[in-house]
C-alpha cells in the first residue's frame, strides 16, 4: 500500500510536466496579447510593441518556457503581468473562498443526496422514489444561475434572510501576539483578519456561503442521489442481502451496514469526481454571488491573457485532481477489502 502511494505520487511528476508544457504552449499559441490589454484601447501600436518588449513577450517561445520552468522548480509561480503581484499570493488570497464553497457544497450535497438515494432505492417504485428522481432530474436540468437568482430574489431581496453577494471569512482576529501580530482563530463573529473591520466569523460566513452552497450543491445532490440509488438497488438484489434478511436482521441494519457499505465504491467515486469538478467548476456560482475565488481568478486571467496566473492555476488544479483521484483509490481499500494495490 505504502509503495503504491509512493508510486502514484511519483507518477504525478511526469503528468504535471506534460500539463505544464501543454498549457504553456496552448496559451502562447492562442491569439490575444496582454501587452495590448495593458496598453489600453488608445495606445499606439508602437506603445504596445514597447510594452511587449519590456514584459519579455517577444522573446523566443522556448526561452520564455525555460525561464518559467526554471522559476517553477524553485517554487516560484511568477508574477502577474497586470497587477505585478506574485501569483502564489493571488492564489493564496482566493483559495479560502473556493475551498470553503467547495467543502460546504459537498457536505450539503452528501448529507442530502446519500439518504435520498438510499431512500429511493429502498422504496423503489413508490412515490418516494419517483419524487427523488423528479428532484434529481430538476437538479440536473435547471441551470445554476436560475436557481441562484431565484434564491437571491426571494431569500435576500424580499425576505432579507441572507446577503445578496460577497464572502466573509470564518477566520477572525482573536487577539494580539507579543510581537504585535494578530492571532487568527475561529469564532462566531469578530474582526476580519484582512480588513481589520468587524464582520467575519462563523455566523457571517454561513450567512454568506449558504445560498451559493445550495445553488451549486443541487446539481451534485442530483448526481450523487442517482448514483446512490442505482448502486444500492443493485446491491439489494444480491444473495447476501437476502441472507441477511433471512437471518432476521432489521431492515435498517441490512440497509446501512450491508447494502450501503457494499454500494459505497461508486458513490465515493462520484463524490471524488464531484469534489474535483467543484474546484474548477465554481465559476458561475462565484460570479453570481460575487465570491472572490479561484474560478473568477481563472476566468479573469484567461480573458486578459495573464499567462503566469493561468499557468499557475492549471498546475494547481491538475495537482488537486491527481491528489483527489489518489485519495479515492486509497479509500476503495477501506470500503472493499477485496481491493488491494
Amino acid at each position, binding site marked *: 500500500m505504502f509503495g503504491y502511494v509512493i508510486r502514484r505520487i511519483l507518477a504525478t511528476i511526469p503528468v504535471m510536466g506534460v500539463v505544464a508544457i501543454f498549457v504553456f504552449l496552448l496559451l502562447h499559441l492562442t*491569439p*490575444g496579447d496582454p501587452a495590448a490589454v495593458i496598453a489600453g484601447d488608445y*495606445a*499606439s501600436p508602437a*506603445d504596445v510593441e514597447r510594452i511587449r518588449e519590456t514584459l519579455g513577450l517577444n522573446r523566443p517561445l522556448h526561452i520564455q518556457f525555460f525561464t518559467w520552468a526554471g522559476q517553477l522548480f524553485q517554487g516560484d509561480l511568477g508574477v502577474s503581468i497586470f497587477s505585478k503581484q506574485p501569483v502564489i499570493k493571488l492564489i493564496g*488570497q482566493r483559495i479560502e473562498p473556493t475551498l470553503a464553497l467547495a467543502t460546504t457544497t459537498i457536505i450539503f450535497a452528501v448529507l442530502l443526496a446519500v439518504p435520498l438515494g438510499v431512500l429511493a432505492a429502498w422504496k423503489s417504485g413508490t412515490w418516494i422514489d419517483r419524487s427523488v428522481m423528479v428532484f434529481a432530474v430538476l437538479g440536473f436540468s435547471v441551470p445554476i444561475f436560475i436557481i441562484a437568482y431565484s434564491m437571491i430574489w426571494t431569500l435576500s*431581496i424580499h425576505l432579507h434572510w441572507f446577503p445578496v*453577494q460577497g464572502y466573509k471569512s470564518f477566520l477572525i482576529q482573536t487577539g494580539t501576539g507579543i510581537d504585535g501580530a494578530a492571532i487568527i482563530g475561529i*469564532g462566531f463573529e*469578530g474582526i476580519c483578519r484582512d480588513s481589520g473591520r468587524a464582520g467575519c466569523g462563523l455566523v457571517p460566513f454561513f450567512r454568506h456561503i449558504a445560498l451559493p452552497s445550495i445553488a451549486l450543491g443541487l446539481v451534485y445532490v442530483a448526481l450523487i442521489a442517482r448514483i446512490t440509488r442505482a448502486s444500492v438497488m443493485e446491491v439489494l438484489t444480491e444473495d447476501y442481502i437476502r441472507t441477511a434478511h433471512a437471518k432476521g436482521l432489521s431492515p435498517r441494519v441490512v440497509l446501512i451496514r450491508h447494502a450501503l457499505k457494499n454500494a459505497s465504491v461508486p458513490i465515493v467515486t462520484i463524490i471524488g469526481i464531484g469534489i474535483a469538478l467543484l474546484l474548477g467548476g465554481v465559476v458561475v456560482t462565484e460570479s453570481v454571488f460575487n465570491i472572490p475565488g479561484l474560478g473568477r481568478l481563472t476566468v479573469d486571467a484567461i480573458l486578459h491573457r495573464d499567462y503566469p496566473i493561468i499557468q499557475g492555476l492549471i498546475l494547481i488544479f491538475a495537482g488537486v485532481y491527481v491528489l483527489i483521484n489518489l485519495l479515492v483509490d486509497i479509500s476503495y481499500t477501506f470500503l472493499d477489502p477485496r481491493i488491494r494495490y
Partner: protein
Amino acid sequence: MISKHLQSFMRIGMSALLASAVLGFSAGSVMAEKVLRVAPHADLKNLDPIWTTAYITRNHGYMVYDTLIAMDGDLNPQPQMLEGWDVSDDGLTYTFTLRDGLKWHDGAPVTSVDCIASIMRWSKRDGMGQKLADFTKSMSRIDDKSFKLVLNKPYGLVLASLGKISSNVPFMMPVRLAMMDAFEAVPEIVGSGPFVFDKDAWVPGAKVVYRKNTAYVPRSEPASYAAGGKRVHVDTVEWIYIPDAATTMNALVAGEIDFWESPAVDLVPSMEGNADITIKVIDPLGTQGWLRPNHLNPPFDNPKARQALTHMVNQEDYLRAIIGDEKFWSTCPAYFMCGTPLDTDIGSEALVKQDLAKAKALLKEGGYNGETLILMDPTDIPVLHGASLVTAQMLRDIGAKVEVQAMDWSTLTSRRAEKKSIADGGWNIFHTYSTGADVSSPIANIGISGGCEEKAWFGWPCDRDGPDSLEGLRDAFSEESDPAKQKAIATKLQARAYEVVPYVNYGQWFQPTAYRSSLKGVLISPVPFFWNIELN
C-alpha cells in the same frame, strides 16, 4: 488519552469562540467608519495610470494622485496643485508655481522637480503629451515650488494638455517613481491626492480600498469636474468589483453597495421605480461609437469605399440595438461630440440621411469586387457585439459579403494590430467606442489622426500632406490658442474627416449611473469622482 486531548481541544476552541464573540461585539460597537462602497465598471488590474490608458486605472489615478491643472465644468483649465501660472508676452515661457501644503502620502513635500519628472514621463506615453514635448525646448526648476516650461514655438494647448481630464492624465508622482521607464509600471503607489491606496487590502479582481488622506488640503473653490476643492467626507472608499450585472443591481437594491458606476442599460427600468435608488447620467459628454475600417486593406484603402460606410450607417439603428432606451442616446454627426465647444454638423449630410443605394454605388466605385470582408466581433462586450451585428447586416444590405469573426476583446486587441492582407489573416472592420472626454478635442481624439502607418491609431488612416490634410489641420489647431480660431480649424477638420473617413461615428450615448438616494454630493463629470460625496 484521546478523549483527554479532545476535551482539551474543545476547551480551547470554546474559549476562542467566546473570546472572539466578545471581541467582535466590542469592535463592532466602537467602529463607526464611514465607508462608501462602489461597484466600478471594471476590475482594477494595473495601478500605474501612465503605464496604461485603461479608464479604471485613470479613475484609480484620480483617487490617489493629483494634477497640476484640472478641467472645470466649462472645459476650462483651472489650477489644481498650482497656485497659478504666468505666461510670457511672447507666449513661449510658462512659469508654474505650486500651492502650499502639498505632500506625498509618505509625508515628503511635493517639489517642482517631482512635477518636471512626472510631466516628462507622461509625455512619453500620451498623445497630447508627446505633442507638448515636440513643442518644448526646456523645463527647469526655479525653486522647490516653481518651475519653468519654455517652448520652441507657440503652442495653444499647454494648459489643456496639463489639465487633460482623461487617459493618460498627467498625474504627479514623486521624482523617484516619475524617473522610471514609462513603459514599466511603477512599483509603489505614492501620490498626493485625496485618498491613499491601501495596498494590503487590495485583492486584485475583487476589491480595492482607499483611505482618506487626512493630510490633503483641498482647494477652497467648489468642486467642478476635476477642478476645485476635493473634499472627502468618508473615511474609506471600497471598490467592490462584481462581474455580474444582475448581482450588482441586487446588491445596490439590498444596500450592500452604495454606487454603481455603469449599470447595464437594460436593468435600469428594474430600478427606476425604487425610491432608494437614484438613476442619473453623471457624464454629460457621453460616449461615441466608432466603426473603424482598415485603411490598408481593400476596399477601404479607397476613400470612396469608406464614404460608402458613411452613407450606409444609420445611427438610430445602432443606438436602438445597443442602448435601447431613447433617453440614453442621441444621434450626433459631430466628430468632436455634440454639446461640446467644437460641436458642428459640417460635412455630415451623408451620415445624417442613410442612403443604401448610394452606399452600394460608392462601394463599387471604391473597387469592391465581391470579396469577403472580415469584421471582427468582440462578443464579450455587448455594445460592440451589437454594433458588429448591425454593421454586418447593413453591409449585406449594400451587397457586400461579410464574415463576422467572433472573438473576445483581448484577441481583438491583438488582431487589430496586424497590418497583414486579408489573405494572410488581416481584417477590414472592427468597432469600439470612446468617451467624450477623449474625443472632444482634435488632439486628444486619436481616431481622427491621419498619421499613416507610423503614427495613426489601428486602422492607420493616412492624410498628412499639406495644411488642409487631417494632420495639417490638427497641427494648426494645436498651434492656435484663440478659441474662436480653434473652432474654425476644427470645423475644417471635420469637413475633411467626412472626406477621408478615418472612422464612422455610429452614435452618441450617455451611460447612466445608479446610486443609493441617501448619497449626497455626487459630482457631474466625465470621470466618476468620489470626493464631495456624503453618506447620509
